[in-house]
């Protein structure tokens, strides 16, 4: 209850600051007041094309999350188990991680043009290296003494992976998932903005073209709100899923 109170106070502080800044700047083109944005938000949410765009963006996020987590953890797991493969692949993964989103966008547009696939590919390429490396680091920092113990007792490899390695990657995996869940919205929307044909990012691009600043803010508010809700729900499930590997 106390936390909720603090949370609501925080939200109130944002709205007060926003209102004060809006009056100080006094330009609806730069910073519309919260009430105008709220009215636009309510009216936009009643439009079927906005809801459709929202669903499309959400579906892309779902696909990106599923692929990134599944492949990131699997690839990270296997390269983490083998020093040679890790040393060979690590520079390549670091290079992919360092490439700016804008470069991927250009490349994806050349190959697939504007459409559904572009934002998904770009988002996966942006988030996958972090997942791979976090998982690999978790595997590599596994307590070797536990592995020795398993060797003495001739424990089957599958059991060692399930009980020791999986538990060892939990801290890294948890932080990697939090980074991914927190960033996937931003990455997908930016990719949609640049090379998407439908979705909230595309709506923002259109709103910018028609100088409908209040709509840009309204769509951004939608992204933030749904992003926070999805983030909380996913974090809850991730923590529940990983509860088995908690230390206390």
């Amino acid at each position, binding site marked *: 209850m106390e936390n909720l109170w603090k949370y609501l106070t925080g939200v109130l502080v944002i709205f007060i600051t926003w209102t004060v800044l809006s009056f100080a700047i006094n330009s609806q083109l730069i910073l519309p007041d919260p009430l105008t944005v709220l009215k636009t938000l309510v009216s936009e949410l009643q439009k079927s094309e906005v809801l459709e765009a929202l669903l499309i963006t959400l579906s892309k996020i779902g696909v990106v999350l599923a692929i990134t987590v599944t492949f990131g953890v699997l690839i990270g797991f296997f390269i983490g188990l083998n020093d040679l493969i890790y040393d060979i692949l690590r520079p390549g993964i670091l290079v992919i991680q360092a490439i700016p989103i804008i470069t991927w966008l250009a490349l994806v547009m050349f190959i697939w043009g504007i459409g559904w696939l572009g934002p998904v590919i770009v988002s996966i390429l942006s988030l996958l290296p972090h997942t791979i490396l976090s998982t690999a680091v978790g595997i590599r920092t596994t307590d070797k003494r536990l592995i020795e113990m398993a060797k003495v007792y001739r424990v089957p490899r599958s059991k060692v992976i399930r009980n020791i390695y999986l538990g060892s990657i939990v801290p890294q995996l948890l932080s990697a998932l939090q980074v991914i869940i927190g960033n996937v919205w931003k990455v997908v929307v930016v990719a949609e903005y640049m090379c998407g044909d439908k979705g909230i990012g595309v709506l923002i691009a259109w709103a910018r073209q028609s100088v409908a600043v209040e709509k840009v803010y309204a769509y951004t508010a939608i992204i933030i709100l749904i992003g926070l809700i999805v983030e909380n729900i996913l974090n809850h499930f991730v923590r529940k899923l990983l509860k088995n590997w908690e*230390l206390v």
Partner: protein
Amino acid sequence: MANFDKINLKTLGNILNTVILNVKSVSKSYGKLKVIGDISFDLSRGESIALLGPSGCGKTTLIRIIAGLIDDYEGAIECKVQKMGYVFQEPRLIPWRTVIDNLKFVEENEERIFKTLEALKLKDFANFKPSKLSGGMRQRVNLARALIIEPELLLLDEPFASLDVHLKVSIISDIIERRKDMNFSMIVVTHDVREALLLSDKIYMLSDKPSSIIEEIDVSNVPKDISNPEFHKAESQILSKILGRWIG
């Protein structure tokens, strides 16, 4: 029959010619540093030996070679046992698993697990994770894990080093009791004369590194009771030898 009762386990092992471990001229170097000189000994079924030597003389290295944790050594190890338990210096428990799950990691037979938990007074702690256990309890789980597989050979690598006297005595009593029931062979690595006397039939005194066996002492007739004057006499004799060999 009465005569048969008097035959100790070591003699019985020799009669039946059941040598289960043969260590032949084993030596080991780390770079230019020779840790183990040239060590040879046999271990018969049901026999217990102690490797008594100063800290850092290579005792742990030798027991790790026997356990198959070190492959690059000179000489040969012939080991005929299928099941080997290892009580490590530090408990090496999987931190995110409960006591019962740590035991299930090496042995899935529930009846055996509960029997061992009961015998080692761990039943009430079965669902505790290692972080909730005291150092002594963790070491008891370490022992339980080694005994649960019903080993033919039990290796003990200074498992009492970090325990207070009460816990040490209590766990040593547990081992003696279990050995009476299960009749496993045992190799105890220690620098403590009392531990060596309590747990073994024969003591191999090791020199400082590169370690080699400097004396073989038969202690099978020494009563395993620290309140017995004979025990103290044997302890004093070995201590004088140590003073002469290691220090003098």
